[in-house]
């Protein structure tokens, strides 16, 4: 990873004073994760360039780390040693700390002056691509030049890499340039090599003091900078908004659109749960099992209704079950409620005697996550051995996919879906299962109906 800073300010060699690094030296700094080198490829009165080269220790980075997912090679062979990331931010603050703080003993007035700067960062991993690079830097007064690298010149079909050469030109104070890079490089990368905590919020507010408030992308910057800490991001927004007194309800157009999509999704989710509850109530079910319960949204709804005396959630993933226990706050539940709930680790392709004896079983958006060839096992587990009086199955209606503009024809709604059925396909399957195992099947729509394509979700209800 290489950062170069050039100036045509006269005399250009004053760059050495600004950065507090002597232009004739080649200096090396030890950092926790490797080394940083500073050198000057050119230094004249007309033009001077300083280079910051990061030399990360790829072996040291991963030593003794017992991260989750450690069993993959991705941990060992990755782009971190070579790209502009939060490592660069740390290097700037440690190697060019004085310059970023605006301290310059040799030329104090120069530190406060906007001078012509030409900066190249390479390679920059940018999630959001050229568009985002421009949206982040242009409002700050830079002329931005972006070049994207191909993944591998020998294999043009592999397409573009996520890495860019980013050149920024503009009249800036050095301290501003460095804080821009300090904040925005990790924002483009959207990852952090260290744990993000409250201190990070303070850092963001301090480094962005002079420019973040007025930045149109400040929400995105806060959210990404406070990586995976939405609470901190909200806090940051509250402080930023308070400071400039903008109406908190005002949203960017893009943000509003996103929420619309989200709301659509939430609504369907709710409608699905509502429809399942309606069928369960009508059936008078008291003992209900949610097969493939995920993080437990349906379980929560079931627990809120006293009709359901015994509520069991089963999932194949131990991690997801832990998450469900956390979301449902099982530990804090009052004992009476706690007694009604049970979480089981199990699979729908293995027979399981614990699944017997329920009034109803729900398979909400579950079957499409199994290969069609394994459905036969699921059928036997549920309909032959568990044999609840009522079985509710919901699954996407693939006909409706035509209405999703962003979904390419022929692809599924979720990467893990193994199939998505038309209404006819579900009905044929359900009827055959019902006939074979002595159930009656009926079908219900879920979600807003289209005259020809039906509803986004379809439901089969089996009653014994």
């Amino acid at each position: 990873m290489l950062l170069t800073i050039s100036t045509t300010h006269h005399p250009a060699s004053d760059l050495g004073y600004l950065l507090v690094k002597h232009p004739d030296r080649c200096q090396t700094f030890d950092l926790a994760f490797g080394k940083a080198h500073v050198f000057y490829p050119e230094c004249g009165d007309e033009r001077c360039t300083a280079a910051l080269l990061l030399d990360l220790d790829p072996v040291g980075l991963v030593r003794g780390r017992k991260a989750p997912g450690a069993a993959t090679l991705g941990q060992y062979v990755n782009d971190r040693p070579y790209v502009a990331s939060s490592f660069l931010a740390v290097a700037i603050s440690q190697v060019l700390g004085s310059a970023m703080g605006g301290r310059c003993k040799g030329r104090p007035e120069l530190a406060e002056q906007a001078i012509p700067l030409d900066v190249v960062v390479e390679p920059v991993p940018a999630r959001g691509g050229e568009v985002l690079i421009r949206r982040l830097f242009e409002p700050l007064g830079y002329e931005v030049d972006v070049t994207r690298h191909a993944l591998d010149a020998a294999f043009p079909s592999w397409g573009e890499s996520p890495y860019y050469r980013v050149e920024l030109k503009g009249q800036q104070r050095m301290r501003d340039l460095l804080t821009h890079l300090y904040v925005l490089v990790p924002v483009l990368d959207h990852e952090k090599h260290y744990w993000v905590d409250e201190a990070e919020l303070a850092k963001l507010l301090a480094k962005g003091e002079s420019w973040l408030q007025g930045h149109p992308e400040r929400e995105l910057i806060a959210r990404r900078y406070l990586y995976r800490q939405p609470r901190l991001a909200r806090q940051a927004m509250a402080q930023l908004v308070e400071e400039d007194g903008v109406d908190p309800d005002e949203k960017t157009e893009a943000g509003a659109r996103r929420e619309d999509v989200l709301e659509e999704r939430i609504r369907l989710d709710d409608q699905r749960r509502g429809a399942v509850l309606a069928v369960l109530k009508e059936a008078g079910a008291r003992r209900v099992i949610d097969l493939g319960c995920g993080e437990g949204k349906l379980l929560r709804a079931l627990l809120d209704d006293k009709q359901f005396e015994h509520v069991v959630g089963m999932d194949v993933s131990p991690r997801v079950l832990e998450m469900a226990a956390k979301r449902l706050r099982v530990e804090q539940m009052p004992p009476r409620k706690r007694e009604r709930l049970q979480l089981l680790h199990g699979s729908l392709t293995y027979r399981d005697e614990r699944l017997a004896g329920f009034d109803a079983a729900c398979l909400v958006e579950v079957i499409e996550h199994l290969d069609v060839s394994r459905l036969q096992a699921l059928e036997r587990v549920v309909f032959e051995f568990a044999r609840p009086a009522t079985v509710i199955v919901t699954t996407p209606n693939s006909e409706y996919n035509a209405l999703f503009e962003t979904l390419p024809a022929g692809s599924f709604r979720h990467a893990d879906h193994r199939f998505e059925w038309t209404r006819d396909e579900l009905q044929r399957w359900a009827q055959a299962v019902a006939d074979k195992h002595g159930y009656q099947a009926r079908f219900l729509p879920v979600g807003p109906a289209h005259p020809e394509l039906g509803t986004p979700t379809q439901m089969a209800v089996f009653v014994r």
Partner: protein
Amino acid sequence: MNLTIPELSLVVLIGPSGSGKSTFAAKHFLPTEVLSSDVCRGLVSDDPNNQAVTKQAFQVLQHIAGLRLALGRLTVVDATNVQPESRKPLVQLAREHDCLPVAIVLNVPAQVCRERNASRDDRSFGPHVVRQQLAQLRRNLRGLRREGFRSIHVLDGVEAIEAATIERTKLWTDHRERTGPFDIIGDVHGCYDELVELLGKLGHVVEGDATAPRVHHPEGRSLVFVGDLVDRGPRSPEVMRLAMAAVRESGAIWVPGNHDVKLQRKLAGKDVRITHGLAETLEQLAQEPESFRAEVEEFVRGLVSHVLLDGGQLVVAHAGMKEAYQGRASARVRDFALYGETTGETDEFGLPVRFDWASEYRGRATVVYGHTPVPEAQWVNGTICIDTGCVFGGHLTALRYPERELVDVPAHKTWYESVKPLGTTTGAPAAPARPYDDLLDLKDVIGKRIVSTRIRGTVTLREENAAGALEVMSRFAVDPRWLVYLPPTMSPSETCREGPSLEHPREAFAYYREAGVPHVVCEEKHMGSRSVFVLARDAATAAERFGVRDGKQGVVYTRTGRPFFTDQDLEAAVISRVARAIGKMGLWERLDTSWLCLDAELLPWSAKAQALLETQYAAVGVAGTTGLARAVELLDQAVQRSPECAALRDRTAARQAMLEDFVAAYRRYCWPVDGMDDLRVAPFQILAGEGKVHAERDHAWHMETLAELAAHDPEWLVATTWLPVDLTDPVQEAAAVRWWEERTAAGGEGMVVKCREPLTRGRRGLVQPAVKCRGREYLRIIYGPEYTAPENLERLRGRSLHRKRSLALRELALGLEALHRFVDREPLYRVHECVFGVLALESEPVDPRL
């Protein structure tokens, strides 16, 4: 007096305090067989005489007794047991475990008890206690049989007790000493002609006529009838006459069927409904003399519900026998043997729905039974129903044991119409809805498990690893019926202590030589994706052998059991192309098999790993080379100005060169794939075929055989280059090192060094079956572009192989065990247990770079 008690029974000692129960128990039983109420009082309260904890003490006693009986262990209860209410739970307990309750009463004069108690300072109760106990005992003595005791021994007086001896007797069902061979005959239902024909086919000699038949086998094979010899068919009396003669004279065994028992009850004058073909039998019997009818009644009455044979490995019962009931005796065991278990529901024809005990069966004994006609006899979890509906126009089937061969003859005609609709072609009744082999049960895989393997003893699987494997298996793996093997992980050779890389053949050769292995085989390591091929001659054969009705001829799956191809048509094309080469070579015939399991590498790497290449390898390559290229350029400029930049320039140029080598390293394993023709398949081991686990044959055989196979499709199948090495010959070893150096210098991944004879044992048990020796350039993909920098290499040399090697052996043991069990036609769950285990072990944390 000699007391006979069944080998498996609950012996209840009855007698007042001081009657000598504990002494009696100690004299005749093992200390561990005796459960004393006083000991249990002590266990819960530290005081063996504490009467206040009677309730808790008996809970402990009954709990242990229950566990022992479930495990088939004779158990003696040493407590006074003088009141009926104290004996009642014990009788109940015996019933629950289907074994016989036995009462032994120690009836001793009160005086003797009192004297004995007085001599013990821990028994402080007054004389009235013994008096009361004796009174209670004598009052209820005659009611013992009514209470449910099947065998009652009363010992009156001290002398009788002293003189008593105990003899343990086998149960009627226990013929474990008979090892066969057996020919087990399915439901005959009066089909005498077919029976005689079948016996002939089996090599039994039937002499005499139908009125006085005699049957024997020149090689001493014994007949076993699974019952229902009578009703519906044309010649029930002749069938019985033959069977009775065989039992009496040739050691045959006849376990009764429900029809046989119903006939016996009718003949004994009981009121039974004349249905389901009994009328025909009665009509036929009417032609016989009265003496024959009496003989039949007496004979069938004496038949035992089921039999255990061959050391307990074989169980024969008319309607089957679940594990918990095998070798037990109770009314419900007999009912199970005769009728099976029903769910309490009836089907659309008004017949009771049978509980499918076989699909749940997990016992080790083979169970052979009849009762429910099926179109074809099929193994389910080590059980087989051989009633193929002869009387309904199907077949009469026999199972040869221990050969496990099925022999059958077709019915001469449809003798009786079935209530259920007839099958369209065979004329046999429609089969009960059950696929070829059965569904797996969660209990087969979950929790801490200990799997016995034939090559390495037991392998323990930790609970949390099994939990992880369950998710992978359920969400991603191919149908478990295809999944007969998962490949073990492989360790690299020991790390080079010096030199330019981490691995070199030198260490691999030294490892084997020092383990006492003189001969190894070096095989070129292909850099593609590991793939296991399971395939049959055609789809019908695949369905027959693997029981998967998905119409596939075979599957290709990855080392974690996932389907290799998402495109089904491509998979089918690849399978059929491999099968074609096998056919052309004549390998099916040569190995006498109609299916094979092959271990192979599928090339190029990019075919399967495209996503990984793009997001990881190419990304690192482009990120590293672009940044460093520009850095070198600028440093060249800087050196002009400031010579002290030279060291950094050189260092950075070296880094740039390593990044370029890295890109070159992965590029070698990539080429564009548009369809099957662009793929290459390099099979390197024939794992198994019918009747044999080839994985245990020497590697030279595999290499030679597979080279021959590749020659039948040389464009597409890749023969692995290989080199046998005698490790006691330095010349050969040096040649092998050169061989490796040349190949890896040209960009080869490296090689695998294998013991020529798999499963070689050294001083410390099994030797690693193979170790890999990867090339310096290839390892950049594994350890990162800059691993060859001296400061990096030095740190990486500290890697430890211990866990990896232990894992490799455990996974090998499980993988081979899976193949053996599949080849031996063991039930699906037994195969799956091992494969699942490999997956579970794979979730143990081990450095993935090894």
